[in-house]
């Protein structure tokens, strides 16, 4: 045995190490288990160094002198940063709301919602591996960052936190193929689902071919996904075309990722709801409450609840309103025949031409 071990020591060690890692892999892949402990060690070991490097870089290059100055007064910095973030988002929200809806309603809607509470964070590293769409932030669970929180910049959404460690957190970017978020178009308020594609352009799914989406149109978060607060910019449509079966193919350039990522906001928001802890999943997932209903939204309900319709329904509706506008009861004898060429909502029975001016018919019998 000894001889064997000596002669094959190298090979044995290699095999043992390989088999151990294979088992580790198998455990994760087969049973969806996560070896969080190893990750925590690695992240807490490496990330402070990355933070130091980033601090040194920021120092020396002087790109972020404001940030530096604020570093000296840490508390002040934190407070200002988050209020700045809130203000930016508030500003953004107001801009979009005012651009689309009338002023009073936008203000009322805004008042009914508390502004998101955010925390500023820096990106201090990317995930290893060449086609990784994962980054690390310098804020972790110590700063209140939790799994499932949205990561945004005032320019647009960036991604969401998939795991948080005490002093750092991991974020998947919206370009990652596993990323998805609910979005809504600016003009026609069409709801869709944004999906990462692994490269710089994202796809929006589940928009019916019949809907109108224009190239260059902005998309905003819809809040449907319970991750991103409603009304944050997402990006501009680059390509919009009809798809093969039912859904349009809409491609969008995310606006949040355009000017190299350095600092971002993590949306903490007081209204986040936590799911009770359970022994199997120590991490809590943060879900936002459902977004307020959008009066302009179309197709929010299934067919049987009555929002999908065909031309036939619209035609019926149109004639009904035309008749109502003229006080005409269909199928009932009246002195004045209806004029179906009048616009349905005019509410006017003024004859547009000479026909209706003809005197009433003689009474029956």
């Amino acid at each position, binding site marked *: 045995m000894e001889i064997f071990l000596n002669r094959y020591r190298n090979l044995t060690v290699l095999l043992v190490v390989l088999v151990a890692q294979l088992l580790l892999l198998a455990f994760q892949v087969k049973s969806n288990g996560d070896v969080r402990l190893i990750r925590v060690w690695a992240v807490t070991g490496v990330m402070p160094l990355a933070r130091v490097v980033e601090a040194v870089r920021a120092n020396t290059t002087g790109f972020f002198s404001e940030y530096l100055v604020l570093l000296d007064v840490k508390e002040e910095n934190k407070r200002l940063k988050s209020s700045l973030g809130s203000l930016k988002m508030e500003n953004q929200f107001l801009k979009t709301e005012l651009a689309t809806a009338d002023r009073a309603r936008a203000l009322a809607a805004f008042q009914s919602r508390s502004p998101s509470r955010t925390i500023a964070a820096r*990106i201090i590293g990317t995930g290893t591996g060449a086609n990784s769409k994962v980054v690390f932030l310098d804020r972790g669970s110590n700063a209140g960052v939790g799994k499932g929180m949205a990561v945004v910049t005032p320019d647009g959404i960036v991604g969401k936190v998939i795991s948080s460690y005490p002093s750092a957190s991991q974020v998947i970017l919206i370009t990652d193929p596993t990323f998805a978020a609910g979005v809504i178009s600016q003009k026609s308020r069409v709801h869709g689902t944004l999906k990462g594609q692994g490269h710089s352009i994202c796809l929006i799914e589940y928009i019916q071919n019949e809907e109108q989406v224009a190239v260059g149109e902005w998309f905003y978060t819809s809040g449907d996904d319970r991750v991103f607060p409603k009304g944050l910019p997402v990006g501009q449509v680059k390509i919009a075309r009809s798809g093969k079966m039912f859904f349009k193919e809409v491609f969008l350039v995310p606006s949040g990722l355009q000017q190299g990522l350095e600092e971002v906001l993590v949306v903490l928001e007081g209204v986040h709801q936590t799911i009770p802890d359970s022994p199997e999943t120590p991490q809590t997932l943060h879900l936002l409450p459902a977004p307020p209903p959008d009066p302009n939204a179309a197709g929010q309900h299934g067919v049987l609840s009555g929002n999908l319709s065909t031309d036939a329904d619209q035609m019926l509706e149109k004639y009904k309103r035309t008749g109502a506008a003229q006080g005409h009861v269909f199928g009932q004898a009246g002195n004045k025949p209806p004029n179906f060429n009048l616009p349905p909502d005019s509410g006017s029975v003024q004859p547009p031409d000479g026909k209706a001016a003809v005197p009433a018919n003689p009474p029956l019998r």
Partner: protein
Amino acid sequence: MTESGDWLLRPRRKHQYRLRPVALLLVAVAAILFQIYVPLFFHYLSYLEMPLLVTVYFSLMRREPVAGVLIGSSIGLVQDSLSHNPIGMFGIVKTLVGYFAASVSQRFDVQNTGIRFLLGFFFFFFHQFFYWVLANALLGQTLGFDALQTLVFGLLNATVAVPLFHVLDKL
């Protein structure tokens, strides 16, 4: 033939390379930091596999397959921890790289610049290919393998490897 045999054996006898464990640890951490940090600013540098090059270097110089295996697996596992993949993918690949690098080091003059270049290139290719195989076989991912791209990045890595190894020699 005797000459070539001598050439093969010479390095084994002459330089018994010793690296302080602290230096090893620092260099490894620096390599990983490089990989997670630099691509933030220079995206194309994400293809520069510093952890791999460091693994290759240490394995070549230690000439101990066991050491190679341990170095490779440690660096690989840390790299895995910082990725979104299941832990063990880089670990397995780097373990193999460490083992083979340490094994071949007994046959080659690892101080020779040309040989370092070739080994750097070879191990990068080996690393990428094996990672691809693993991803297909174990994770069921169906990624394409872009051989040409890998060749180009292999050359890039090999080019970086030569001066890097030279610097590491000085430590």
